[in-house]
C-alpha cells in the first residue's frame, strides 16, 4: 500500500458542536473551516454562488453551505441540527451545527450530547453576553470535555489585543462559576480566515494555535471512561446452525471500562456472577474490548441474559435504582405533565416512569434556580425526580455519559420529549 493510502487509515474521529447567537458568524466559521480545509467541492461552491446571486447578495454567503432545507434558505435561518464532515491528515471531524436561536435549546442539547468539544462563538464587539452564558451552561450540563471560545469578528475591533484580553477575563469568570475545566481561547475572523486554518497576519500578538490546529491536537482518548466496566446487552446472538448449536453471545457496545477474557463480571438485574469466556467479533476473538467498540461477549456460565440487562465488573457495579434524580431538558411543545407517566429509554433498557417532583428549574440566562414555578415546557431545563417501574442500572452523568443519560418518550405520541442526565 502506498504511504498516501496508509495515512488515511490512521486518523482519529473528533465530534464537535458549535454554539453562537444568530449574528455571531457561526455558519460563516463553519463555511470557512470547510472551505479552507478544502472540504467544499466545486459543484457545491457553484451551487451557493448561484443561490447568493439569486438572493442579490454581494458576496458569496458561506452560510448557505450549511442551510440545507428550502425553508431555511428562504428565511435565512437554520432550523435543525445539520451534520458536516471534513478531514485533515490527522483527524476526521463531524460537526453538529446547531441553530443559535433561543427557542432551539433542544437542538443545542442534541448536538452537544455526542460532542468531544464545543466551539462557543463570541462577537468581539459585544463580548460575553447572556447567550454566551446560556451556551456555556448547556455545554457544561452535557459535559462536553473541551470548550474552545472563538472570539470572532476581530477585524471589526482592529484586531485589538486589549479587547481580546478583556473578553477572555470575562469568560474565565463564567467558566469558574460553571466549573468548566478545560477552556481555551482563540481570536479569529471567520470572514477573513484569521486563525481559523491559517495563522493571522493581523494579530502577531497571538502566539497560540489556530482553531484547526487545536481541533487536530486536543487529546480525546482519555475523555472516555476506562475505569468502570459497563456493557449494556443490546441483542442476543443465537445462530440457527449446527456448527454453532450451543452458541449464545451477548451483543452490545462497551459503554465504559475495559473487558478482558477471564474478567469476573456480574449480570444485572439478576446479580449472578460469572467470567468473560471470550470477546467475539466477525474477525475473530479480541484480547480486550473498550469504548466505543461493538463486540459480542461470551460468558463462561449458562445464565439467563437478555436485552436491557447489563454486564458489569463484579467489583465495581453501577447503582441499581428505581428512584432517580436528574437534570432534564424538555424538548416538546406539550409541557411535562405533573406526575405524568412516560417511557424511559436508558442504555438498552426501557421502563415506564412517573414524574414525582420538580425540584427547581434553571433560568439559563442568569443560572438561577427557580423553585416557585413547576411548569416544565419546551426548552426548559429542570431538576426532577422520577420513579421507574423497574430497576435502572445507573451511574451519574458526570462519571459516565452513556450509563448516566436517558430520554423520555411520550406514550401517546411516541415522541422523544426530554433528554436526561442523572445526578
Amino acid at each position: 500500500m502506498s504511504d498516501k493510502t496508509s495515512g488515511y487509515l490512521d486518523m482519529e474521529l473528533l465530534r464537535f458542536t458549535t454554539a453562537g447567537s444568530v449574528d455571531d458568524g457561526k455558519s460563516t466559521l463553519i463555511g470557512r473551516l470547510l472551505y479552507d480545509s478544502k472540504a467544499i467541492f466545486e459543484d457545491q461552491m457553484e451551487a451557493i454562488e448561484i443561490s447568493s446571486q439569486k438572493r442579490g447578495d454581494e458576496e458569496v454567503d458561506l452560510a448557505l453551505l450549511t442551510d440545507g432545507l428550502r425553508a431555511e434558505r428562504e428565511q435565512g435561518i437554520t432550523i435543525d441540527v445539520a451534520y458536516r464532515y471534513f478531514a485533515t491528515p490527522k483527524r476526521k471531524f463531524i460537526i453538529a451545527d446547531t441553530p443559535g436561536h433561543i427557542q432551539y435549546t433542544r437542538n443545542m442539547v442534541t448536538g452537544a450530547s455526542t460532542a468531544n468539544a464545543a466551539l462557543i462563538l463570541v462577537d468581539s464587539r459585544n463580548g460575553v453576553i447572556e447567550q454566551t452564558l446560556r451556551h456555556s451552561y448547556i455545554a457544561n450540563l452535557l459535559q462536553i470535555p473541551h470548550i474552545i471560545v472563538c472570539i470572532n469578528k476581530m477585524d471589526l475591533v482592529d484586531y485589538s489585543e486589549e479587547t481580546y484580553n478583556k473578553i477572555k477575563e470575562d469568560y474565565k469568570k463564567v467558566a469558574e462559576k460553571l466549573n468548566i475545566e478545560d477552556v481555551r481561547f482563540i481570536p479569529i475572523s471567520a470572514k477573513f480566515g484569521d486563525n481559523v486554518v491559517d495563522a493571522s497576519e493581523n494579530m502577531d500578538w497571538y502566539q497560540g494555535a489556530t482553531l484547526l490546529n487545536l481541533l487536530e491536537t486536543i487529546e480525546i482518548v482519555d475523555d472516555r471512561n476506562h475505569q468502570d466496566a459497563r456493557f449494556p446487552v443490546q441483542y442476543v446472538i443465537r445462530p440457527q446452525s449446527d456448527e454453532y448449536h450451543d452458541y449464545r453471545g451477548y451483543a452490545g457496545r462497551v459503554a465504559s471500562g475495559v473487558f478482558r477474557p477471564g474478567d469476573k463480571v456480574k449480570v444485572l438485574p439478576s446479580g449472578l456472577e460469572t467470567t468473560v469466556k471470550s470477546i467475539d467479533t466477525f474477525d475473530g476473538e479480541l484480547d480486550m474490548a473498550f469504548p466505543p467498540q461493538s463486540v459480542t461477549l461470551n460468558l463462561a456460565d449458562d445464565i439467563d441474559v437478555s436485552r436491557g440487562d447489563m454486564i458489569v465488573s463484579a467489583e465495581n457495579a453501577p447503582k441499581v435504582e428505581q428512584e432517580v434524580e436528574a437534570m432534564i431538558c424538555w424538548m416538546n411543545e406539550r409541557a411535562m405533565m405533573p406526575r405524568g407517566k412516560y417511557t424511559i429509554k436508558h442504555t438498552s433498557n426501557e421502563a415506564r416512569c412517573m414524574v414525582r417532583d420538580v425540584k427547581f428549574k434553571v433560568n439559563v440566562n442568569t443560572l438561577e434556580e427557580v423553585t416557585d414555578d413547576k411548569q416544565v415546557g419546551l426548552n426548559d431545563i429542570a431538576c426532577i425526580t422520577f420513579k421507574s417501574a423497574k430497576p435502572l442500572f445507573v451511574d451519574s452523568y458526570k462519571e459516565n455519559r452513556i450509563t448516566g443519560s436517558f430520554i423520555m418518550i411520550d406514550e401517546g405520541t411516541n415522541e422523544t420529549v426530554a433528554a436526561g442526565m442523572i445526578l
Partner: protein
Amino acid sequence: MKEYNINHLRELEAESIFVIREVAAQFENPVMLFSGGKDSIVMFHLARKAFAPAKVPFALMHIDTGHNFPETIQFRDELMDETGTRLIVRYVQDSIDQGKVVEETGFDASRNKLQTVTLLDGIEDLQVDCAMGGGRRDEEKARAKERFFSHRDEFGQWDPKNQRPELWNLFNGKKHMGEHFRVFPISNWTEMDVWQYIYLENIKIPNIYFSHERDVFVRNGNLLSVSDFIPMRDTETVEKRIVRFRTIGDATCTGAVESEANSLEDIIEEVAASRTTERGTRHDDKRSEAAMEDRKKEGYF
C-alpha cells in the same frame, strides 16, 4: 492512554454495527435496502459483522428500476448466494404495469422518481416496519439534516421540520400502526470513509467502479453510458472513453467519470484529489436546488 486508541474507520464501524443491532432489536420486520452500489455493499458487510456467527436476521430488498448495469445484478446475485441471504426484489416495471405510476417521457426520462411508489408499496405489502438505507449525510444538503432513526408517517412521508431529537446513542423507534422507520446506519460516513473501509476490509465491489473502456455520450456535462434505456438526441454522438463509475444508481441518471483508476489505492487517491462531489455525476439531483428534499419528503430513499 494509547492502548485504547481507535481509528476513525473502526469507530464508524462500531457505531454502524450498534445501529444495525438496534434495528434488529427494536423492529419486528425490518429489511435492508440493497442497490448493489458501494454504500449498500458496505452496509450489508457491517450487518454481517453485527450478527456473526449467526446470519443476518433480516432480508435485503432491492427496488429494481429495470434500468440496471448488468454487472451490478450479477454481483448482487453472487453475493446473496455466497452469504445465504434472502433477497426481495420489487420491480418499478410492475408499478408501471399496474398503472400506479406513469413512465416519464422525453430524452431525460428517468425511473428514479418512480422508485418511491414501488418502495412504499413494497413496505406496505410486506408489512415492513423499518427499512435501512445506505444514505449518508455528506451526500447532499437535505440528507445532512437526517436522523439515524427517521420516522415516516402512514403515507411514508418525511417531515424534516418536525423530526424527533436524537441524543447520545439512544434511538427511539416507537411508532403507530401503519407508520414505519427509515434507518441510516452509515449516516456519519463520507465517500472517502466508504472507500477506505472497502480497502481496509478488502470488500468485493462490482467491477464497473474500476476503470474500463465504455461507449458513452455527453449530456449536460455528464458521461452517460450508451444503453437501450436512454434515447439519444441526433446531436449526441457515441464515443469510446476510459471511465469508471463513482456511484451506481439507475443507469439513466448515473454518469461515469473519466478515470484510469483500476485499484482501490488509485480510487482513494482520486477521491482525495477530486474537486466535485460524487452526486455531481447524478443527473437526478440537478433538477432543482431542493430536488433531494422534495423526493425525500415523498418517501424516497
